[in-house]
């Protein structure tokens, strides 16, 4: 018969368990309310529904279509080598997704927010709700989507047809587990960042991690280390009849990740955001007005203001650094060849544009009205903003190309011309698209928090999908051109692309120059 102490302990344990369960149920209910609230604010519902269908359809295509490809049917040693490399690196690709999930969560200060900080301030939203919201929003990220599609496609390519279904279940379970784990790590890092000297600690540890990876790579040990990771077992088991075990293990890990992640979320969200507060109270000593050798001083001053708005934002600075170094390091460490590297500039340029370029005027926030009262031509304002957006995109994608150059050395002439042409095309392409969107669909947003996005989540998902599709298709075209013996072909093919995008950019500029259109953008962005 149990003693009275045992009974009391049991009651206490039950009460605590019930309370925890209630916390989670309340958080799940609140997350539902927040999602419903955001869903009701979606302006173009039909476009949103189409977007969801397109993402699901593309996921299905990537999960199935490559399965029909038989490398033996193409009598090419290059294709055979590439196929063997993909098969051998499947475990590393799984690990890469985890790395991405961690980087995305760390970069966005723990994860995206369902309601902005100022909107959420008046509501009783618990850290667990914030955590669940961030998990739900994790897929609305270009890099997450592209990596997931990549993982599905590669798995479909290497798995035998009889094990394809099981292998793709493993991929989906891995995606869930990695996202939950990445989220937990993201909150923990954000918590550390919010402690005294935490920013320094995170930077030092981050630097050490990168240096270790590069060191291992240079010493020739990285492949062995990555091969020894459990992801190799996951990748191998996925292609056998033992896949249900892998799915069960991964789903269990995902559940653990979700539950455990609530702890660091509560810790991090209970601390003041030191880095943002430091930026907001930071002193920037006066500099003399620029006296450029070329161009007008007015434009130089506007450029300085716009650049300051980008680089003084914690979220944008962090995002640009992650985008600049992340894909490049992947190219460096994973040993991506030029054919694969060609995809990266478009994707990194798109990622940079998604930091603020898709709603380029939001850099000014409520100051947009004051900016509009300045006696400067609207054309100058547009040109400078477009230049600053282009700079950010070119910088991120340029670092990727340079790091790939370090890994692969100088490419053959035709490949080199194709890479440069593709880079130019995707930057101009993305610039034209995002400047058009910025004028057509402006939003009032406060980007002071790194968890904020420049447009509502549904719109961001649509933007990410469209940019990734356009730039990936463009890059695939230029990759195809590298098999030709004529180096001039990629440059010639780039001309109509650049011309078309330039025309689109000019159209957006013309729209901005119209007084009533500009007034609409200004009043929307400033929310007045």
């Amino acid at each position, binding site marked *: 018969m149990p003693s009275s102490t045992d009974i009391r302990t049991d009651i206490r344990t039950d009460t605590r368990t019930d309370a925890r369960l209630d916390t989670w149920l309340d958080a799940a209910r609140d997350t539902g309310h927040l999602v419903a609230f955001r869903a009701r604010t979606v302006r173009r519902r039909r476009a949103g529904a189409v977007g969801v269908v397109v993402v699901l359809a593309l996921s299905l295509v990537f999960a199935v279509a490559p399965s029909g490809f038989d490398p033996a049917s193409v009598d090419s040693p290059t294709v055979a080598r590439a196929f063997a490399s993909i098969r051998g690196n499947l475990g590393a690709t799984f690990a890469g997704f985890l790395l991405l999930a961690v980087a995305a969560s760390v970069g966005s200060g723990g994860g995206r927010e369902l309601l902005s900080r100022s909107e959420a301030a008046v509501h009783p939203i618990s850290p667990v709700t914030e955590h669940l919201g961030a998990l739900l929003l994790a897929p609305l990220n270009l890099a997450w989507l592209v990596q997931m599609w990549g993982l599905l496609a590669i798995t479909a390519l290497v798995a035998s047809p009889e094990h394809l279904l099981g292998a793709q279940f493993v991929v989906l379970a891995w995606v869930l587990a990695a996202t939950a784990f990445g989220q937990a790590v993201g909150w923990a890092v954000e918590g550390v960042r919010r402690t005294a000297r935490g920013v320094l600690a995170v930077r030092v540890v981050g630097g050490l991690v990168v240096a270790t990876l590069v060191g291992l790579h240079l010493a020739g040990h990285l492949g062995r280390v990555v091969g020894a990771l459990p992801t190799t077992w996951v990748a191998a088991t996925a292609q056998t009849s033992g896949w249900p075990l892998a799915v069960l293990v991964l789903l269990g890990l995902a559940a653990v990740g979700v539950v455990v992640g609530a702890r660091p979320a509560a810790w991090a969200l209970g601390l003041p955001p030191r880095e943002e*507060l430091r*930026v*907001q*109270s*930071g*002193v*920037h*000593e*006066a500099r003399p*007005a620029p006296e450029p050798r070329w161009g007008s*001083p*007015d434009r130089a*001053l*506007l450029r300085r*203001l716009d650049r*300051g*708005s980008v680089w*003084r*934002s914690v979220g944008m600075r962090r995002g640009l650094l992650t985008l600049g170094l992340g894909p490049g390091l992947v190219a460096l460490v994973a040993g991506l060849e030029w054919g694969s590297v060609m995809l990266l500039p478009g994707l990194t340029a798109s990622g940079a544009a998604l930091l603020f370029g898709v709603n380029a005027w939001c*850099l*000014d*926030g*409520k*100051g947009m*009205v*004051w*900016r*509009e*009262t*300045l*006696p*400067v*031509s609207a054309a100058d304002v547009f040109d400078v903003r477009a230049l600053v957006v282009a700079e950010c995109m070119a910088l991120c994608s340029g670092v990727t190309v340079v790091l790939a150059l370090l890994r692969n050395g100088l490419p053959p002439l035709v490949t080199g011309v194709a890479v440069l042409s593709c880079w130019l095309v995707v930057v101009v392409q993305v610039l034209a698209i995002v400047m058009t969107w910025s004028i057509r669909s402006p939003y009032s947003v*406060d*980007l*002071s928090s790194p968890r904020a996005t420049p447009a509502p989540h549904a719109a961001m998902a649509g933007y990410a999908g469209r940019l990734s599709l356009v730039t990936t298709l463009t890059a695939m075209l230029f990759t195809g051109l590298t098999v030709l013996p004529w180096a001039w072909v990629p440059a010639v093919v780039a001309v109509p692309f650049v011309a078309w995008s330039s025309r689109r950019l000019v159209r957006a500029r013309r729209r901005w120059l119209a*007084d*009533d259109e500009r*007034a*609409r953008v*200004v*009043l929307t962005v*400033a*929310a*007045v």
Partner: protein
Amino acid sequence: MTQTPAVVVRDLHVRFGDVEAVSGVDLTADSGRATALLGRNGAGKSTTMKVLAGVVPPTSGAVTVAGHDAATDALGVKRVVGYCPDVGGLVPRATPWEHLQLSARLRRMGDWEQRGRDLLERFELGDVAHRVVGGFSHGMSRRLSVVLAALHEPAVLLLDEPFDGVDPLGVEATLEVVADARARGACVLLSTHLRDLALEACGEAIVLRGGNRVAAMEAAELTGEAYRALLD
């Protein structure tokens, strides 16, 4: 000889989609005088101010600011106007000094630094001149908006809710700016809900209701009862 008013608005209409924010406002404001623009929320005061500042183009009607047509010469209007918007009005990640520098350089002001420093000191913003404004309180942002509007000693000074959330010292400094502007012959238009402060700052008052002008009078004539009656 009669002097042409600095601000002339004739039958101004401003439409945003299906919403008519201003429907047929007529008003004039003279140089060397301060005119209060009063009315309830949604009366069209801020939209009228934005048209006068060259930010929003008029849908129809004639608007002339210091001789510049707001419909065809918005850039000219911006050169002669100093505008404190009703909400925000500051670029979040720039410092007050950077705001002043941009405004002064674009208006081709030569020695602006001393005046900028004096204004910042007068509004007790000297200590935060090099901090980004994203961390400012609402009152500090409002004070800086008034400083920016006054920096270049504009011919037409437009102040939209300049007292909103501002402490008594800030209110005093704003009243001084209005008095200085009147003294040097500028036209001041001041929009506010605070009748008492409007009367203190301005000699004339215009009351808007539902996008229309319903009264124009000497400020002293606008008693509490009269104002209340005009709002209903």
